[in-house]
């Protein structure tokens, strides 16, 4: 029997069941955002990360409300003022366990982590430091995300020389080490460092732009070949509309993963900048700045750097755990 006579297959049948039944929805959902979100509900790592993020963000919101609207009324009423200590200008030796001046009789429950060289409570300062870290993470990442998405979407969609120019520009941005870029940014536009933190955030945001731009661009390249974009084009829909309506929503899952991881990176970098003196300035309560203080005292108080360090680590781990979980969920290649 010749093949041509009986070359029919069940393919037709399979196609029709796939297009109609549950399967098609599942295939689409797998790359979609909702699938990713449902998937992490089963992942303990991602859930722990999410819990850490929720706790730190809540703390940050409370601290921000108190700092901006209530002028530390909450802190002073129920705790201590995070910026002003009893010894405003005297360089008092910091107080706490491990300190050579430590005196057990002075220990009270009210200063569980001790006080710093101005007599300010370390625990309060850590609490209010959360606000800086979270703000920095979200603001700078949003900047990078929006800028990168626009650049990548335009470059990927139009292609050709527009793509070449934009991607070379992004590559240049990537080639300048971000820490130097940010420090130069701070020094260039803010010599007395009044707004150093703001500039540090913008700088880190710009430094993260290339990653998002590349990500979106590669997504656009694959998505724009797909039929519905072709169909939209054939129907005479404007390019800008296609990018906004089809390409960007379809790239949301990987961007979300990258953004979550980037928030952690941004917190780490800005803490590093504050540590070097180019970020948050005294008397702001920020973890990086507290580390900077601790650095001067390291010979007498090594433990002093531990608490802000742990705070940074836990917060960043939270974002990394969630990001990792999201990535595993969004990546069909490493599914079971």
């Amino acid at each position: 029997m010749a093949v041509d006579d009986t070359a029919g297959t069940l393919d037709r049948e399979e196609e029709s069941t796939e297009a109609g039944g549950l399967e098609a929805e599942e295939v689409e959902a797998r790359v979609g955002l909702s699938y990713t979100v449902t998937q992490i509900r089963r992942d303990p790592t991602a859930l722990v990360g999410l819990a850490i993020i929720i706790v730190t963000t809540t703390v940050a919101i409370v601290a921000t409300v108190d700092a901006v609207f209530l002028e530390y009324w909450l802190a002073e009423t129920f705790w201590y003022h995070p910026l002003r200590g009893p010894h405003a200008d005297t360089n008092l030796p910091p107080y706490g366990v491990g300190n050579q001046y430590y005196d057990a009789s002075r220990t009270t429950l009210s200063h569980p982590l001790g006080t710093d060289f101005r007599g300010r409570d370390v625990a309060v300062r850590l609490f209010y430091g959360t606000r800086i870290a979270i703000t920095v993470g979200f603001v700078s990442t949003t900047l990078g995300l929006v800028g990168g998405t626009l650049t990548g979407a335009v470059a990927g969609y139009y292609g050709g020389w527009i793509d070449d120019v934009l991607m070379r520009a992004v590559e240049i941005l990537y080639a300048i080490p971000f820490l130097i870029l940010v420090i130069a940014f701070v020094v260039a536009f803010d010599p007395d460092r009044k707004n150093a933190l703001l500039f540090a955030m913008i700088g880190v945001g710009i430094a993260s732009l290339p990653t998002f731009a590349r990500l979106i661009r590669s997504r656009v390249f694959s998505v724009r070949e797909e039929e519905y974009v072709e169909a939209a084009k054939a129907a005479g829909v404007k390019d800008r509309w296609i990018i906004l309506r089809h390409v960007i929503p379809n790239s949301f899952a990987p961007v979300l993963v990258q953004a979550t991881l980037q928030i952690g990176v941004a917190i780490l970098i800005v803490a590093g900048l504050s540590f070097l003196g180019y970020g948050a300035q005294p008397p702001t309560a920020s973890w990086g700045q507290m580390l900077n203080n601790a650095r001067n005292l390291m010979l007498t108080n090594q433990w002093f750097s531990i608490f802000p360090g742990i705070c940074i680590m836990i917060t960043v781990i939270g974002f990394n755990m969630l990001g990792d979980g999201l990535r595993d969920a969004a990546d069909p290649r490493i599914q079971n």
Partner: protein
Amino acid sequence: MGLLRYAVRRLLQAIPVLLGIVTITFFLSNAIPGDPVDIMLGASPGQAQKEAIQAKFGLDKPLWVRYINYVGDVSPIWLTMTDSFPYVAPEFGVDLGRSIHFRAPVSRKIMERLPVTLLLMGSAFAFAIATAVPLGVISAYRRNKPTDHVSRVVALVGVSTPSFPAEVDGAATQGDVVVTAGHHLVLPTIALGTLQMAAITRIERSAMLEQLSQDYVRLARAYGISDRTILRKHAFRPAQLPVITIIGLQLTAAIGGAVLTETVFEINGMGRLIITAIDALDYPLIMGTTIVFGLVFVIGVIATDISYAYVDPRVSYGEREA
């Protein structure tokens, strides 16, 4: 043949990128408020003296003339047909100018400091790769077993830990007894390498997981190839492609990390040089160090691209872009 052509094309592509780095650096440096001549001369300089120095360094010219001039200066000498402006401190046919702060040619300061930083970064990457690759492979092979969980936690903590307080503790012990050259390198290497290690481990793991479920790996198993050979050869080689990419991209992070590490461990490398330069508003030094960092990065990326093309035949034959 394919590989060589690819390498040449990639090198040519780097030229506009380097030009862009010079441009951005130049204008960003010039946007810094404050007059370097004032800083150099100290308090109350005479007007004539100031003008003489401005003329000597070409600072009296308009910005765009200085820009063109600077581009001419930093270009290798054999590319510059005419140079309207005399070289200030040429070395190796490149003129990066004279440092105001150190009162020495920028290129000499960089030649002094660069080897230290390259050694630090080199050993950090060597440490990171040597630990991360086996860790990632084992983690993927023993997926969801205790080994995997431990190494994932190590990687998570690694990328999340601010390396600077750890360095503070390390620096404190340095004041102690025997401070050997090895000791000097070990702690900074670990401090700088941990972040790269964690990033590489994560990529290695997911790349190996992806490879282990590939049809050609399953086929190798079906033909009686042992797990060991699969891990070392069939799955390993293709899995290194994303790892190579990430190593290239980690270079920027490593350069930033070097700035921190050098500051904390008081290592006189490029990182501290650039901080000094920025603090002293030493334009020529800021521009020089940034450009050299940019150059290191570009060379690193090209090197990773070429090794990518070496591992993946599809790239050098032009089927797929890196």
